[in-house]
């Protein structure tokens, strides 16, 4: 099965991390990337902060563009991974290893496979 792992975290809290803490987190992500490739993690990326987001909606043929993420949330989307594995238990095990899980939340969303 394929799952998208969405990493949510409090950007404000993250911005308050010291340089050492940020560097340590980078290192942890690097380690995670190496380990998790063997476990079925394919694509993945960190995203720029939510204040760089733009939201597009098309209503009645009109394109409406607004500044910012689709909604204001307590934790914001900060990155993602695509995972190929057997079942949800495996996905949970891998998601728990993502450094962002320690202070944020990882949403595990199954990918809809259509023939």
């Amino acid at each position: 099965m394929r799952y998208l792992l969405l990493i949510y975290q409090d950007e404000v809290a993250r911005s308050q991390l010291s340089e050492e803490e940020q560097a340590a987190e980078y290192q942890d992500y690097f380690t995670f990337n190496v380990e998790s490739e063997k476990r079925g993690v394919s694509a993945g990326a960190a995203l720029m902060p939510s204040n760089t987001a733009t939201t597009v909606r098309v209503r009645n043929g009109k394109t409406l563009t607004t500044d910012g993420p689709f909604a204001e949330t307590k934790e914001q989307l900060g990155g993602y991974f695509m995972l190929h594995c057997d079942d949800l238990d495996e996905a949970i095990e891998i998601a728990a290893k993502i450094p962002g899980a320690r202070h944020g939340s990882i949403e595990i969303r199954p990918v809809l496979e259509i023939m």
Partner: protein
Amino acid sequence: MDTIQQVVSETYSREGDRILAALIGTVRDFELAEDALQDALLVALERWSVDGIPHNPSAWITTAARHKAIDRLRRENTLARKQVVLQALLEQEEQRGEEDLEDTSIPDERLKLMFTCCHPALALDAQVALTLHTLGGLSTTEIASAFLVPVPTMAQRLVRAKRKIRDAGIPYRVPEMRVLGERVDALLCVLYLIFNEGYTAMSGSELIRRELCDESIRLARLLTTLLIQESLYREVPEALGLLALVLLHDSRREARVGPGGELVLLEDQDRSRWDSSKIKEGLSTLERALHMRQPGPYQVQAAISALHAQAKHPEDTDWPQIAALYHELMRMTPSPIIELNRAVAIAMADGPLQGLALLDQTILKKELSDYYLFHAARADLLRRAGRMNDARDAYTQALKLCLNERERAFLHRRLVEVTEALELDD
């Protein structure tokens, strides 16, 4: 015709959960498995009246259900997932080939089913409902009435849970060693929740509440049997602990409620109405658990319940030992409510002042300030210590927070007692 109906019905009663568990293992879809099983039961009613009752009715039904599942998958829309399942089913059928239907024994997949129903990816109320529905055989209507939820809401809850299992890829397996301990804990928690709903709830019919208690006891027994069958010995002591705990609690069910439906406190219960065979079974189950030398919170709770069960009269209760057990429980699973119970036990063993000293800890006052039982317990100890003014304040506070009619009546009587005692002094 009637005999056939009886056999089909009895087979379903006796082995329905085993058959369903095996089917779910094959098709990986609760709804599909349930529908296919229902189809198979109808076919059995038709065919057995013509061909006679098979030698192994449950094996016959299982195989028929598998065929019906294949039929259903063929008829439905094409989704990659369904195609995969259909392919696997067809391959299995080819491999079985000329196998004699009657010889096939159904593997017992009920342990997998129990873990799947209680998977952490499902909301707790869904876990409870699904366990009762799939393993307990309770109807949607019965479960809805037990939890005071409208039937359509409960039906939706069950449908959503089954679909989540299918769509999110919740595996149908005994969890791997790494997470087995925490998953068993979750399972025990659900069974205990079900028991408590039947035991302490004041709403819903007596009949349905008794069914909940009976079901949780039955499932706790089944769980321990299955864990032993699968050689998962490390998980057995706590499962036995839970079984002992619910048996011992249940032994008091007749004495708990008075003729007017009012709650009877443990110290006032007519102990001759306690079920001695349940007590016996509870005590021997606890002994089995303790012999395995792997203490845990359910075993400790069961031991506390056992001490009550073994006291012929309230005065015979071994309160110091109960207090020590609560101390042990606090060590394992600290919580303000356990500390509250410990304080009450210490008060019984060493006097109300000792109990009050514990209740006056800042942390308890903070955590339990909105919990009416905290104030009720304090009030009781203050009353016994002769501090009537403070007792009156505490009973008043308890009444402000208590919503249960029967308990309010009890607290009100105490408040009147205390107020009268104060007036006498004046």
